[in-house]
């Protein structure tokens, strides 16, 4: 089976070959034997290479259809599987051109402490919009791009759930 796997820096073509009950993986043109066994805590132990094998502990979770997060030795690597990968360049959201209205959502449940903008205000990129308190800390939510506030959907003192749209910016 040949798959296209998107990793943060680039897409990689990975081919899996089974022969005589053994597993070989060809990646970036190099072919190596892989041994995978299930270990505790829902993780897998991979031994890559033969006779000298590099040892890795990995765990895999599906974050969305076609998207996985792979923990490699405790480090989180987001990957996409199959032709659907989108190469997300680092910092693209901050530097790229704005596309469509920005919806500023509450990243967690909490209480709105302060609303710093009102509809019609012009805002700069990274300007503070709303202060939400959760877990005893105040967190300022900021604009991603410059724009104009179209809508403020919360008032000070309101309790919000994670994912609630607080401010819409055009």
């Amino acid at each position, binding site marked *: *089976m040949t*798959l296209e*796997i998107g*990793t*943060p*820096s680039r897409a*990689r073509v*990975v081919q*899996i070959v089974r022969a005589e009950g053994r*597993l070989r*993986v060809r*990646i*970036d043109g190099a072919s190596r034997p*892989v041994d*995978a066994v299930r270990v505790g*805590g*829902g*993780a*897998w132990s*991979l031994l*890559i290479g033969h006779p000298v094998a590099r040892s*890795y*502990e*990995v*765990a*895999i*979770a*599906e*974050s969305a259809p076609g998207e*996985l997060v*792979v*923990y*490699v*030795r*405790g*480090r*989180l*690597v987001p*990957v996409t*599987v*199959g032709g659907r990968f989108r190469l997300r360049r*680092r910092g693209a959201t*901050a530097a790229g051109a704005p596309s469509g209205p920005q919806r500023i959502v509450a*990243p*967690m*449940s*909490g209480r709105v*402490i302060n609303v710093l903008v009102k509809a019609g205000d012009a805002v700069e990129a990274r300007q503070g919009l709303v202060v939400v*308190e*959760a*877990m*005893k*800390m*105040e*967190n300022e939510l900021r604009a991603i791009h410059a724009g104009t506030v179209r809508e403020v959907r919360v008032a000070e003192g309101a309790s919000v759930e994670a994912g609630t749209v607080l401010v819409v910016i055009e």
Partner: protein
Amino acid sequence: MRVIRACRDMGLASVAVYSECDRGARHVRLADEAFAIGPSAPTDSYLRIDRLIDAARTSGADAVHPGYGFLAENEVFAAACRDAGLTFIGPAPEVIALMGSKTSARHAAMAAGVPVVPGTAQPFAPDAPEAAIADEAARLGYPVLIKAVAGGGGKGMRLVAAPGDLASATRAARSEAGAAFGDAAIYLERRLARPRHVEVQLLGDLHGTVQPFVERECSIQRRHQKVIEETPSPVVSAELRARITSAAAAVARSVGYSSAGTIEFLLDEDGRFYFLEMNTRLQVEHPITELVTGVDLVEWQIRIARGDRLDLDPAVALTPRGHAIECRIYAEDPDAGFMPSPGRITAIGAPAGPFVRDDSGAEAGSDVPIFYDPMISKLSAWGADRRQAIGRMQRALGEYDVRGIRTTVPFFRWMLAEPSFEAAAFHTSTLDELLQQRQGESFSTPNEEEEEVAAIAAALHEDASRAGRVLLDPAARWVRQDPPYVAPRGGWKRQARVEALRS
């Protein structure tokens, strides 16, 4: 859990209290008895003095240890324990009140002949006019720090660089202080240039003996909150140690201090130190002092409360044996401005092995609630010297594997390898400056090798799931629950294989 463990070491029974969301928490399961004290919000449970006293009475407990959060520095709670005939494991309520007010604590330090950071002599009441605050700020000179009189942990604290920012910073500090401590009174302090935060742990008994310990260095702070502590301080000489620990002991003696406490100082670039404040409780960073002295501070708190005499050898307390470092690991996403990351921990692999101590209540399947401080572990490492301690901490951080939520582990892996940390060339603003320079750059960027392994693992997973096998983490909440599709014709063989693989 730290207190329950000390009780068990001493053969004492322990009683835990819990709020609704903590019913399944480890401290509840570890204790001999446990009492529900109300809903999850702290104001309805952990801050309810009446319910805590009731629980203590019902259980027949002799003494109450207030821990290091919530009511640990609350004189009303300490007095309520005393009035109920319970031994409060901490200083007397009058001493908590005296040292808990930042302004009266400064007076106490001055009276003991210890220098203080120049600042307001009297606190500003919540309704003090802005003009009076502005006059005082101008007298001290900018930049000034606004601090909550009842404050601690960086809450209710604001740095003001210029007069124009004073009014809004005052409002913010008052609102945060009012919410966190129920007291919106504030005071001002001059901001020293590039100071270090050096603090002295001490123990006092009920017979007038006060024993200071080797200093801790806590300058690695993010927005005035300590994130890494170490002991001894890499910049404190034996001569300075003798002076700063004597100064701390003098302040504690002058107020009749008993139990564990910590006096915090700012140390300027010329080696002059200034009294900052006193924490009248056990501190989060106490394990590193225990690691370099071999003294169990919680056991001593209990013994002191029982009336035992503090008979520690001063040389043991003041001579560091090796070096220890602690990282406060939080359920926060360092790649999203350290935003809290509550949720369910799907899997956790905690570090262990030689000279590593992990004080943690987190476990697989447990939730990090939104209601409390999101600290999940106090990870400490010991070495014969600083370099070895750093190496062991890096090893321990490399082993720390938390899934389901984001943690600050990736941040610590970066921080411990930072040249300024390795060189111990830092002050209390160094971390904030370093973070600003990074401009939000990710701490979790995988290297080529990790990406390649992730790609191989993902391909194997995809291959296996198409073949009807599952390589997913079964604890993860996003695991597909549907059984794999099985072709109707000739499918029995494959079905058998699926079941064999799952069992």
